[in-house]
């Protein structure tokens, strides 16, 4: 399974619809401070169904909707679509390509789609459950995770191994 394409609109600083085609196995993301690189990471996590606002540096879930800038008005919803190459069938479905979409409106209304068909949040989670991309499965590693890995108690480390087992 491979992430082929990411489409972002209304999420954090993505007030303009943005499409990212991920071709290679090793893609570098570069740019000045504050321009949206870590926000792309947040978008992918959110697009995979991350329920915890704090994991995305936010306090409330609506914090991830573009709240305006000096020159732009806020927008009414955030939407992220992730498109996977599923040739190896890792994602439960019998399709060569699988897309998932998550949308959150400012009024709090949450929507989930698999291959453009509406579904429930738990269908979303189930889709990724065995893929290694569910919850702890995708590895997002920043400075905090590095420090946590080393400062972790012996018990925490044991828990990781349980997860990997």
């Amino acid at each position, binding site marked *: 399974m491979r992430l082929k394409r990411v489409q972002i609109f209304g999420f954090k600083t993505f007030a303009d619809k*943005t499409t990212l085609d991920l071709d290679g196995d*090793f*893609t570098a*993301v*570069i740019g000045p401070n504050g321009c949206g690189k870590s926000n792309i990471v947040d978008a992918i996590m959110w697009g995979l169904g991350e329920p915890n606002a704090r994991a995305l540096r936010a306090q409330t879930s609506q914090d991830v909707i573009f709240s305006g800038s000096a020159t732009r008005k806020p927008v009414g919803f955030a939407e992220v679509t992730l498109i996977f190459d599923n040739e190896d069938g890792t994602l439960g479905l019998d399709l060569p390509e699988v897309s998932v979409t998550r949308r959150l409106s400012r009024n709090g209304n949450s929507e989930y789609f698999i291959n453009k068909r509406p579904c429930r949040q738990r269908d979303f989670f189930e889709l990724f459950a065995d893929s290694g991309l569910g919850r702890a499965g*995708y590895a997002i590693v920043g400075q905090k995770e590095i*420090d946590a890995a080393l400062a972790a108690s*012996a018990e925490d*480390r044991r828990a990781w191994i349980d997860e990997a087992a």
Partner: protein
Amino acid sequence: TRDRFMSTFERLQLAFADTFQRMFGGGEASLSLSDPDDVLATGVQVEVTIPGKRRQRLELLSGGERAMSACAFLFAILRVKPSPLVVLDEVDAPLDGRNVERFIEMLKEAAQEIQFIVITHNPVTIEAAPTWFGVTMESGSGVTTVLPYRVPAQLIQEVIPEAQ
């Protein structure tokens, strides 16, 4: 179950001992059970020896040594249980030139099986990546623009003025 934990643990032990040596060009690292008789409740301890130095608690290591050790541990976990997608956000920030090169070598090898997205300000890492996304923001707009992956030279220079 006990057997499954032990088998995973032993594979991780071997993997970590290897990834550590390759990240540091030597030295030793080990994982051990704090309570080998109680496998269902035991914790897991880490000890490392940086090449040329004595075995040391993790807290006394330098910033760069800690980052390298944590990356070695991550690469070991990925060998035991590959994640399809791994995103690294500026983990190379504390590394000196030589350590970045060793880190990149491990990364390229792991990238044969795993898809990596690597956010970085480091010129050595950027040089080594086959594909780049330039992410920028029009001054004062507050809105992200992502450039297609042939990044124009000007953006690179804005990010790394010394790479001229």
